[in-house]
């Protein structure tokens, strides 16, 4: 079985944990408290790895699977941290017909991660986005604040090399 545990080492601090526990204790007896707890937890840690979900499960008594089910249901939650560089590939209509899907696939292959995940060294995270309003440059991707347009699959290596 492929586990969805993040390969990026968990770097939570005692301060973050104390913050999370305070949030849980404040909310846990309310009906429907799981969503707000998860939202706060993601604010605190930036993502919701197993270590964080386990704290929530142990403290609320909600089974870990139920929490995981909610986290994977909603797009607002992430199991993986953001990398030093976030690569965001536009899969909006214009970019997609111009082949951004292939670029996205190539990046997944090169980085060895699926969309939404982060490389084990914490360097790159990859995500898909919808139109960023630069259709004239399609297909487009961004690396943090840098924008790259009129791309082909062959450009992927060069772009990655710039940040290596």
């Amino acid at each position, binding site marked *: *079985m*492929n586990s*969805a545990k993040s390969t990026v080492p968990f770097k939570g601090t005692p301060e973050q944990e104390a913050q999370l526990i305070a949030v849980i204790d404040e909310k846990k007896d309310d009906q429907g408290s799981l969503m707000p707890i998860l939202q706060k937890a993601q604010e605190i840690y930036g993502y919701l790895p197993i*270590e964080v979900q386990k704290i929530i499960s142990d403290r609320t008594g909600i*089974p*870990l*699977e139920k929490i*995981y089910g909610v986290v994977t*249901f909603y797009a607002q939650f992430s199991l993986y941290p953001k990398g030093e560089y976030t690569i965001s590939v536009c899969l909006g209509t214009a970019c997609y017909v111009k082949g951004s899907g292939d670029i996205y696939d190539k990046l997944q292959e090169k980085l060895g991660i699926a969309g939404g995940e982060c490389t084990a060294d914490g360097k790159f995270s990859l995500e898909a986005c919808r139109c960023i309003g630069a259709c004239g440059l399609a297909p487009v991707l961004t690396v943090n604040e840098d924008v790259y347009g009129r791309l082909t699959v062959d450009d992927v290596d060069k772009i990655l090399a710039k940040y290596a």
Partner: protein
Amino acid sequence: MENITVKVNGCEISVPKGTTVLEAAHMAGIEIPTLCYMKEINEIGACRICVTEVNEGRGFRLVAACVYPCSNNMEILTSSPKVIESRKKTLELILSTHDRKCLSCVRSGNCELQKLCKDYGVEDASKYDGTRNEYEIDDTAAHMYRDNNKCILCRRCVAVCSKTQGIGVIGANERGFKTFIGSAFDMGLGETSCVSCGQCIAVCPVGAIAEKDFTKEVLAAIADPEKTVLVQTAPAVRAGLAECFGNPIGTNAEGKMAAALRRLGFDKVFDTDFAADLTIMEEANEFVERVSNGGTLPMITSCSPGWVKFCEHYYPDLLDHLSTCKSPQQMFGATAKTYYAQKMGLDPKNIVMVSIMPCTAKKFEIGRPDQSAAGVPDVDYALTTRELGRMIERAGILFNSLPDEKFDDPLGISTGAGVIFGATGGVMEAALRTAVHTLTGQTVTDLPEVRGTEGIKEATYKVGDLDVKVAVASGLSNARVILDKIRSGECDAQFIEIMACPGGCVNGGGQPQVPMGIRNFVDIRAERAKVLYDLDKSMPLRQSHENPAIKQVYEEFFEKPGSHKAHEVLHTSYVKRTVNEI
């Protein structure tokens, strides 16, 4: 309760307010098909197979009958062309992502989806074929596998796991087309705190989850001339097995089961009921010792391996309360490979001990540590009632025309106290029969206070000068209620029986699957339990200590209950486990 009037297919009937369309139709003699619906456990209206036309004065429209309440003067059409067409389309859409390997599927012939497709005349199973998710089979657990390629996402398994059993190690992950049933972080089931109860298998409508099948290995052992293959059958198996051969729920299969096992080629056909009597001797003795020596109380029974694993994961702080007695299955295997082997001059290594169990956790239990009294595993293969049904079918044995036969001596001799182990409260009743006799010399045989399918039962018995307070729980969410009371110090019972499955072993995860359309309206726990209580009533000996084979085994081997030898062979130890291990 206020009654209202509804018309089901033109026939007027009166139903209590709050009745669902599904229930009203049932009262009118119509079965509306269901896939996701389980009364009081999974009322989510998700699968849409139960859609039915209703008119509440604004014209007919389709509603989900399982969760839609009747209103006064409602007209209900359960099989109009529109209804039939909608259900058929739903089936075709379910099939579009279903791995249709019906010919090689363990559920072929008793698959609820297959039956519906036949009933609704689905002609083209591939009508809406398109993209399909492919899933790896999860075979990480000792007792079962999950093949999500066949899952129809009805969520019955999820509901029993979290609601009935209070565990929740499986659930729906991801969303939309990508939704699948699995565990947290896509761990294999064997890596989670699953207790192996198999209630999920018992309710699965299709072949997405099933027990691991060991019938081939058992047949190979039978064919091996070097091996002496012994079989033991748990009490509840005789109350369920006949269902595999088209008999009504609540048919006693004891005699035919013994005959079938003999025809399958087992060298000796023995009865776990013998070991149930043995368990009572050991457990009653342990209880008396704990009471007189200030041991940990309340003492809790340890017959149900699903319950034992649950305690280890979720209440490890209460493990001292568990009786150290092995379960009857393990006591049987241990006795067979020590006492019986010695008596018959057999090398325990050449004995293959097969058990037939209503249970899937028994498959996990045989691999536990500290369960090998003779230096080899006490039990080699634990088959479910369903697996035995398949073996009999495969061998061409005409089960229903078999004569009633008896178990072999000496490990086939038992009492009525042993046979009621298969129903919730049965172990408690059996133990009390012997305890009362030990302490007062009196004979009691019927203790109705601990019988019945209620999830939690409590009673106080006057035994001599003692007031013995007992509690009985079945279904692990009910067990939680009692365990939480022990933790908080509010529990004043001295002796507690806990069974993992609701209703006890008769409703175990290894019993024949009963379509939900029947389960929602018939209490299979009560029907099957009746078989055991009737058997008990019909037996000449109804107290474990009266069993002549038990007397003999103590005289010849164990000396007395709780002896050093008994501890070596018949008792075990437990391990602390955790929840959410990472």
